[in-house]
């Protein structure tokens, strides 16, 4: 991993915080609570990017059988679940004062929750490891491909079905003020760098763990 990547990510996140609190204007209808948007949007988008990575890496593992793709899928899934959890929590804290409820069974929220459960089950499957490491990787890769069916539903739910969840980009609403758009884009880019740094770090950790596991299975080395 390039050493500059984590530094750029942290600098981007700090800049994003500055823009959120001191640059972006307060929205007229919702007031200051709308600023949750600048965290909620990048978390949601990068969680979807994580699950797309799981899909691509799982498909490549099934096609080529290289363990590097399996490790990438696992790392992306972990990160995706963390980001999706935080997107759900921040969304609930936004919904309570605006919609007067913590949760509603809206298509966008429901498909997101279903997605969260599916990828949690992927992680559970990885931790149980049915039938040894190789079999667990194959079974997880199949789940990683099939699970992706829900991701486009999450993305298009607010656009295609009647939903109270707002669609800011590409929707019928008026869009964002230039200052709001700039803040949102900086936050998305900063979270993207942070996401990439964490993904590479976790994938490298999993590679090291696999190497150590292989070493410890050698007959002349027996761990105590």
């Amino acid at each position: 991993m390039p050493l500059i990547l984590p530094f750029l990510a942290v600098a981007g996140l700090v800049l994003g915080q500055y823009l959120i609190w001191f640059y972006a204007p307060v929205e007229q209808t919702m007031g200051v609570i709308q600023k949750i948007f600048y965290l909620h949007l990048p978390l949601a988008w990068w969680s979807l990017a994580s699950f797309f990575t799981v899909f691509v890496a799982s498909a490549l593992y099934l096609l080529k059988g290289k363990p590097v793709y399996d490790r990438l899928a696992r790392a992306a899934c972990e990160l995706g679940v963390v980001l999706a959890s935080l997107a759900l929590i921040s969304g609930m804290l936004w919904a309570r004062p605006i919609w007067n409820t913590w949760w509603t069974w809206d298509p966008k929220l429901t498909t997101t929750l279903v997605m969260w459960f599916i990828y949690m089950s992927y992680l559970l499957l990885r931790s149980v490891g049915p039938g040894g490491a190789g079999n667990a990787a194959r079974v997880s890769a199949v789940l990683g491909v099939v699970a992706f069916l829900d991701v486009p539903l999450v993305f298009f739910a607010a656009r295609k079905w009647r939903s109270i969840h707002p669609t800011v980009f590409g929707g019928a609403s008026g869009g964002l003020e230039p200052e709001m758009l700039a803040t949102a884009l900086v936050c998305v880019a900063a979270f993207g760098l942070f996401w990439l740094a964490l993904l590479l770090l976790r994938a490298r950790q999993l590679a090291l763990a696999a190497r150590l596991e292989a070493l410890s299975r050698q007959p002349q080395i027996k761990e105590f």
Partner: protein
Amino acid sequence: MDRDLYLFAANAAVWAGLCGYLVFLALRQKALEARCRRLEALGGDA
């Protein structure tokens, strides 16, 4: 609860969650390094 408090709570939750994942990664890294050292010591004895 005031809207400012919801905003504060959302921010705190997001950064706590991200810091929690960073702590998890740091602990995993520490455990891997410890295992590496153990294997190196065993390899040196062999």
